């Protein structure tokens, strides 16, 4: 099934969210796609608790507060979110574009607005030689089907919530060894104490150290060399599950034929349109002379982009400029 809307926004960070507002005021409907499991982009994923001081009229706002307030602000426009998926392909159609995601969602829209920040969040890969050969065979950065690990020897690496939660969960049916560079963990205290309990009763083995190398093995197992301050050693397991958080990557956007400037999408500063008509780019992902990577620049870009998108959505209509303070029609849209 292909869904239809006016605009697909790629990226549900602060700028993508505010774009829903600016487009909504012009009667343009949006659907948003994001690779994270939540909205808010970097604000929600990297620094939900950290203060931001340069949002006009907000002397101090945290990343999460900013996200929550933006959601509230755009709520009247009922945007639809497709989370946990990355846009893989875009296909030109007579209507506009079909956008296809990594899990098969298809949305057709007149315009695409790329608001992808520094790219999509993907698991940080272990920087060891030849690891690609083992990925999705012996090495998994995400767990989709935990039953494949039943009864197996696992090595889980990392000290955050994912590492600890999976250690605790998988230790029910698997032989789990957890490796981390130090004895302290940044995961939630509850998960840490649970892991220590499991360690005490022998359900989990803990190794202090860092993985350094994959050693060739003839058998089905994967052999890893690790070391800590005191010694070097090896471990052989069926699967390695590294959890070192997320990093940002431009990903498939680089292959869409848009003109780039050092991995950023070139846009004009009137409409923030890319080199491909009806594809726009706003926020940290775009580049133009004088660009500043600030949330507030992204908000400004959203407003001007919406004017450009209007012409594609309503080619025969005149767009009358109005203020939210005084326009009765805009009040109706906002439900105030």
């Amino acid at each position, binding site marked *: 099934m292909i869904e239809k809307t006016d605009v697909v926004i790629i990226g549900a960070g602060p700028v993508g969210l505010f774009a829903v507002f600016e487009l909504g005021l012009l009667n343009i409907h949006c659907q948003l796609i994001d690779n994270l499991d939540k909205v808010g982009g970097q604000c929600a994923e*990297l*620094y939900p608790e*950290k203060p931001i001081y340069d949002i006009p009229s907000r002397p101090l706002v945290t990343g999460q507060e900013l996200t929550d307030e933006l959601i509230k602000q755009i709520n009247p426009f009922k945007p639809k979110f497709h989370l946990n998926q990355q846009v893989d392909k875009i296909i030109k159609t007579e209507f506009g574009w079909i956008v296809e995601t990594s899990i098969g969602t298809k949305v057709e829209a007149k315009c695409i607005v790329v608001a992808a920040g520094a790219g999509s969040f993907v698991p940080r890969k272990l*920087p060891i030689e030849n690891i690609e050969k083992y990925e999705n065979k012996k090495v998994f950065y995400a767990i989709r089907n935990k039953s494949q690990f039943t009864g197996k020897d696992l090595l889980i690496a*990392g000290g955050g919530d994912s590492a600890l939660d999976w250690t605790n969960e998988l230790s029910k049916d698997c032989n789990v060894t957890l490796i981390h560079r130090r004895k302290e963990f*940044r995961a939630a205290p509850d998960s840490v104490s649970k892991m220590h309990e499991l360690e005490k009763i022998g359900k989990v083995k803990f190794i202090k150290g*860092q993985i350094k190398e994959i050693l060739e093995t003839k058998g089905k197992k994967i052999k890893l060399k690790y070391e800590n301050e005191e010694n070097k050693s090896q471990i052989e397991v069926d699967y390695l599950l590294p959890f*070192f958080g997320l990093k940002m990557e431009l990903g498939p956007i680089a292959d869409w034929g848009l003109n780039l400037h050092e991995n950023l999408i070139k846009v004009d500063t009137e409409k923030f349109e890319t080199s491909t008509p009806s594809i726009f780019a706003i926020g940290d992902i775009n580049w133009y002379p004088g660009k500043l990577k600030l949330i507030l620049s992204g908000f400004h870009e959203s407003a001007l982009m919406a004017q450009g998108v209007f012409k594609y959505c309503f080619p025969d209509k005149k767009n009358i400029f109005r203020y939210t303070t005084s326009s009765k029609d805009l009040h109706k849209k906002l439900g105030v």
Partner: protein
Amino acid sequence: MPKLIITNRSGEKSEIEFDSNLTLMETLRDNGFDIEASCGGCCACATCHVYIDDKWRNNLNKMDEDEEAMLDQAFDVTEKSRLSCQISLSDDLDGLEVEIAPE
């Protein structure tokens, strides 16, 4: 102006001047060193990982718990490891030797 001695990922050494109002990460980025610093310097990503020479380690502002925890997402962490966004520069760090950690 005080100076820093930087070793890049290819092992080449160079000297750069610094402004003591900046962090080490900002200084490295501003001088064109290949340092991702994707979170922009709020200790949320571990992509500005550097090694600080032994003789300088104790002269720096101490590592707090946040930074130590964030280093869990970095690789090849040693006792020399710091996140450069958390290091404030000051004039008495003239001559500080810094090595950029592998990606």
